[in-house]
C-alpha cells in the first residue's frame, strides 16, 4: 500500500527519511509524526480559512500562513499537498483571489485524502505488526 502512496505522489522520499528515523528507541515515531502533522495542519488550515474570510485580499497574511503549512508538508513528505500549497502561494503572489480560493480548496481536499490514506496505512501496519509478531512468535 505504501508503494501506491508513493506512486500516486502522495508521499515522497522525505517520508522515507522520516521512516528511517524510526528505530527501537522510538518505535512509533512515524505514526507520531504523522498524527502530529494531521492535527497541526488541520489547525493551520482553519487559520487560513479564517484569514481568507476575515482579511480579504490580505495576501501577505495568507501567504505567511500557507508558508507554515507548506513547511509542515515538506517535513513529512506530503508532496501532493505541498504542491497545492505552492500553487496557493503563487496565486497570492499574483494577487489572484480567485486563484487562492481555488488553490485552498484543493489543499483541503488533498489534506483530507492524505489523512484517509495515512490512517489506513497505519492501520495496515498495525495489523501487519500484530501478525508479524504473531508469526514471529510462532516461529
Amino acid at each position: 500500500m505504501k508503494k501506491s502512496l508513493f506512486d500516486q505522489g502522495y508521499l515522497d522520499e522525505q517520508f522515507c527519511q522520516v521512516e528511517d528515523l524510526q528505530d527501537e528507541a522510538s518505535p512509533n515515531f512515524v505514526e507520531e509524526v504523522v498524527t502530529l502533522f494531521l492535527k497541526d495542519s488541520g489547525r493551520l488550515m482553519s487559520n487560513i480559512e479564517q484569514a481568507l474570510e476575515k482579511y480579504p485580499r490580505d495576501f501577505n497574511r495568507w501567504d505567511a500562513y500557507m508558508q507554515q503549512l507548506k513547511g509542515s508538508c515538506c517535513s513529512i513528505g506530503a508532496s501532493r499537498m505541498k504542491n497545492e500549497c505552492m500553487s496557493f502561494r503563487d496565486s497570492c503572489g499574483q494577487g489572484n483571489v480567485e486563484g487562492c480560493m481555488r488553490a485552498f480548496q484543493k489543499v483541503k481536499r488533498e489534506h483530507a485524502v492524505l489523512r484517509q490514506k495515512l490512517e489506513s496505512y497505519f492501520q495496515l501496519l498495525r495489523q501487519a505488526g500484530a501478525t508479524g509478531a504473531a508469526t514471529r512468535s510462532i516461529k
Partner: protein
Amino acid sequence: MRPDERKGVVAARRDQFPVGMRVLAVDDDPVCLKVLETLLLRCQYHVSTTNQAAIALKMLRENRDMFDLVISDVHMPDMDGFKLLELVGLEMDLPVIMLSVNGETKTVMKGITHGACDYLLKPVRIEELRNIWQHVVRRKFSTRDRANLDIYEECNKPSNADSDHAHGHVTCGSPDQSGRPSKKRKEYYSEEEDEGEEDNTQETDDPSAPKKPRVVWSVELHRKFVAAVNQLGIDKAVPKRILELMNVEKLTRENVASHLQKYRLYLKRLSAVASQQVSIVAALGGRDPFLHMGAFEGLQGYQAFTSSTSLSSFTPHGLINSPRNNPAAFGTQRVSASKSIQTVTGGHALNHSICDANKYHLSSPGNQQGNLGQGMATSLGQTQMQPKWIQEETDDLSTIFSGNGLANSGMSATLQGVTSSPLLPQELVECTQVKVGSQPSVLTPSVSSGHLEGTVGVSSSLLDPRVSQQTTIPLSEFSASGLPIHGLFNNSCATKLGATSSASTPVHPSDDLLVARDTKAGASSFGSTMLLPPDTEQKYLNFGGGNSFKHKFDERTADSLFDLKFVWSSGLSSQSASNIGAHHSISQRWNNSSSNNSNIGARMIGQPSSSASTVAPHAKSDFLISGDMLVPKNASDLSVPKLQSELSSSSCSFDGLLNSIIKVVRSYHPLVSLPQHPSL
C-alpha cells in the same frame, strides 16, 4: 533534567565532539520541529527544542554556555527568525543556522547578511545536519583561538590544511580552507575586540538584565568608523563627531567611544610592535597569529586599508617610525584573500579576514584606506580580492607611499598586509631600515615594471611613488627602484618589504635566490610587502602574485606565504601579475610551511637585491605571507626576515601589521631561520 545535571551528562559526551554537540532548535511548526529533533538525535547531537523564539532566547541567556549551536526557522509568529539570529549572534556569539521552506536567493542572502552561518532548506536532510558541527568549530577557533581548546585539539579535520602549520595558537586548523578567511576575520575581530570582548562578556554576563545587544563591528561599520576617524584626524577624533560622520542609526556614542578606545589601543600596539619588530618581523612577515590564521585575510583588510589614504595620512603620523601606522596594512597580510580589510589593523586583521581589519584599521590613517580596505574586504573575501584590492591599494599606496617616503616603511612592516594602506610602504621602509640600512630603499619605484600583475601591479604603482620617496626614507637606502612591494600589498601584504630590500638587496644571497627564483616565476610572492625594487625584475613583485613565487618556492613552501605577502608588485610586476594571484595560494602555503617562511623571507630579500635595490625587505616580505611563517624570529640573522615579517604585517597598518607579524612570526616560528634557505 536540571541544567547542572544536564551539563554533566552533556559534558561527558562533548568530549567526543562532534558527538554530543548541543543544539537548540527553534521552530514554530511542531511537525518540523519533531522531525528535526529526531534527525539531530540521530546525528548524536544533544538537542533541546522550543517552538517559541522568546523561550529560546531566555534559555540562551540563562546560560550562555549551554549550547553550541542554534538552528532556527525563519518564519515564526512571535519573532522574526532574522531578528533572533541577530540577537543570538550579538549576545551570545553562537553560530546560528537558518531553516526555511523558502529558498529564494534574496531570503538566503538576508540570512547570510544577518550573520547566519548556514541556511538550510526544508525538508532538512540528515546529511546536511551531519556537517553542521563545522560551524561551531570554526567559530570557536576564531574566537578562542588563543585559549586552549582542548576539545578541539584533536580535531584535525582533513580539510584543515593549515592545521599543520597552524601556530601553536590554533590547535586545529580551520575546518576548511574556506572557513579560514572567516575564521581569520573572526580571529582578528576577536583579537581586536579582545579587550572589549571580555568587558562585554562581563557586562552581558548577567542574563536577567536585558543587556543592550553588543554592537557587532562589521567590516562595513568599521570601515565607516575608520573613515570617520581619519577624516577627523586620529588625534581629534571624538566619539560624538565620529558618530555624526558615520551616520549609522542605532549606533550610540558609547559604542563608538569604546570602539575608538580599542582602535587606539590597537594602533598603539601596532606601533609598539612595529618598532620592535621591525627588524624581526620584517623578515618574517610572520605576523602574529592572526596572520597565521587567515593570514591573508587579515592582510587583505589591511591592504585595502593601507592603501593610499592611510599612507598619506600616516606619514604625518610618522609612519616612519612605527609600522604601526600601517597597522591596517599589515594586518591584512593575512588578508591576502580577503581584501585586506583595512589597512590599519593590518596586523590583526589578517586573521580575521579583512573585515576585521577593516573595521579596525580603517579608521586609521587614511579614511581612504579604510575605504579601500572596506571595499576590498567586502569584496570577500578573501583571497580573491586581492587583485581588485591591490589595484585600489596600489593607487592609494602609491600616493601614500610617495608621501610617506618609504623611509618609514623601511621596514616594510607593512609588508604584511600589503594591504592597501599606503602605510605599508612606510613601514616597509622602516623595516627595511632596520635591516637594510644600507640597502637602498628600493622600494618600489622600480615596481612600476609591471608590478605585480594585477594585485601586485597595483601595489607597484604605489610603490613607485613611494620609491621615489624612499630615497628620503631614512631607512634603508632602498633604492627607489623600488620596492614596489608596497604595491603588492594588494594581496596579502603589500609587504613593503620592497623598501627594505632596496639596493642592498644582496642582503641575503639566499634570499636573492629565493627571490630571484620566484621572480622568475614572476610570482615571486614575497609575501611580505617587500618593497622590492622594481628593478628586480619581478622577483619581488611576485609577492602579490605569490603564485609564481610559490612555484618557486615550492621547495620552500614558504613561498606560498610569500606570495601572499609579497604583493610587492613592484618591479616584478611583470611577473608578479601572476604572483599576486598566487598570493592566495601562497598564503595558504604559508601556513604549511612555516619554516618555509623563513626561507622565503630570506629569499625575498635576496631577490630584491638582484634587481637593484631590491628592497631590503628581504626577509620581511615573507612575513606577510602567512604571518606565521615568517616569524621574523630569525630575522635577526636576516635583516630580511624582519622585513618580511614586518612587511607582511605592515602592509596595512604598519603598526598593526608589524605587531601582528611579529607576533605571528614569533609565535609561529621559533625558528625562523631565514638566512639559510635550503631551498636556495
